[in-house]
């Protein structure tokens, strides 16, 4: 895989989380939402779960490909 230089996200189904400052997070490559509350958003990725915790979090938009979360992000955890 390394030698072929193929993008990892499409081959392994890895999720991409892009965090801009403390306020915005873009998430790509996920299966769906497991939990959503202003304090914690848990997303089901293809290989693992991603939980983003913080305060006053909202989902700005939500499509099949990507989503945008805004609010005060405190912690991003994979498990």
């Amino acid at each position, binding site marked *: 895989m390394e030698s072929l230089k193929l993008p990892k996200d499409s081959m392994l189904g890895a999720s991409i989380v892009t965090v801009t400052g403390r306020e915005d997070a873009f998430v790509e490559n996920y*299966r*769906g*939402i*497991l*939990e*959503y*509350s*202003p304090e914690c958003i848990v997303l089901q990725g293809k290989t693992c779960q991603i939980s983003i915790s913080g305060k006053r979090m*909202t*989902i*700005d*938009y*939500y*499509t*099949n490909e990507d989503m945008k979360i805004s609010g005060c992000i405190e912690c991003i955890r994979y498990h």
Partner: protein
Amino acid sequence: MLQFIQFLKGYVCIRVWGYSPERFMNLCSNHDIFLWDIKNCGEYYSMCVTISGFYMLKGIVKKTGTKVAIQKRCGLPFLVPKIMRRKIFLFGLIGSLVFWMWMSTFIWAVDVTGNYSISEDVFMDFLKQYDVYVGMRRRDVNIEELEKRIRQDFNIVTWTSAKIEGTRLVIQIKENEVDLEADKGNGENEGNGAGKEDAGKRQAGKETGNEFGSDLVAGEDGQIVSMVTRAGVPQTAVGAEVKKGDVLVAGSVPVYNEDATIRKYQYYDADADVFISRSLQRTEELPLSYEKKEYTGEEKKEFFIAFMGKEFYLRMGKVKYENYDKVTDRKQVKLLDNFYLPVYYGSSLNREYVLTDNIYTKEEVKNIFSEKLIKFISDLEEKGVQIMKKNVTIEKKDKKWQMNMELQIVEQTGKNVPVAPVPQAAEEGQSGDGTETAPVQ
């Protein structure tokens, strides 16, 4: 931009509650239903969805066991039927649109710039004569024809440009400054022969176009104090008294035979600098008393709206003052920069005054008269007149103040008058080289 597109397409804000709202969202994204502004409001979730997406929610709702309720409808598709229901409003909107469009097909203001010697009133009268007036239809204005007519009717105008800006007709003109000055110069020369430009005068003499030349005659009575002849035969000498109309320098120069008889005449335009000394009398009068405006300090500002040539003042009854001065500040209503409307507004200030009869004191009379005298003298000096002596008296006469001015002045005189041909006296005289009197150079 995105919001604008969403507004055009229309969307609904919904609330979702029930067994598993997260699954509802996942299914929506799987079905390519776009969701945004998702908020967790404790017991329910609120979110926005497009109209087409909303119609696809039915199956998902059933599958997930959630409930959906519309909170708000937004966007153009919902707005249009709402507006359609308000018929009078719609009618008014369209009506006003039509009205404004109709209004914009007229000329509501005419601006003229660049006119110095042609007054605005004269210009407006001229425009009226050619059916260009405030309130005419815009398409009736023939710009090119108008420009041509301006140039034709006003010789002084060298360049003109007319254009329509919105509902305003803007006319720019340029006047010929050189021509103006030349006219003025000629006017002075003709005034009393005391012109400054000799060259100009000489040329004027030639322009008389008389094949028999021209004589220089006195313009006024007086005594000659100086005489320098350039062309012609002097008929008088320094010190001589002349009357108005007397020939000073003759344009017909005799050519003599050897026996001192005249053989023939040569004709020239007589040209000379002749200065005469003469007395000038002038009387100025002033009444004993005069009316003086005394402002009482009372003033009132009032506003008005003018429409179709009528002014409507915002006041109760009539103006209370018996005598008053009125200063009006008038503006035209316009939309944006160039959409002028036939409505004016403004304010005017009325200042009350009382007329009082005053009698001139001796000091005042003296001051007024001396001002007049100074102006008169400076006018004369501007014309190149020298003042040798002046005698001014002020006296009370026939219930009037009177100033008598007696001035002794020296001024240039002389006017070219065409000569009647002198009969060729010594036609039969001997030929040969006679002594010729050349014109005095």
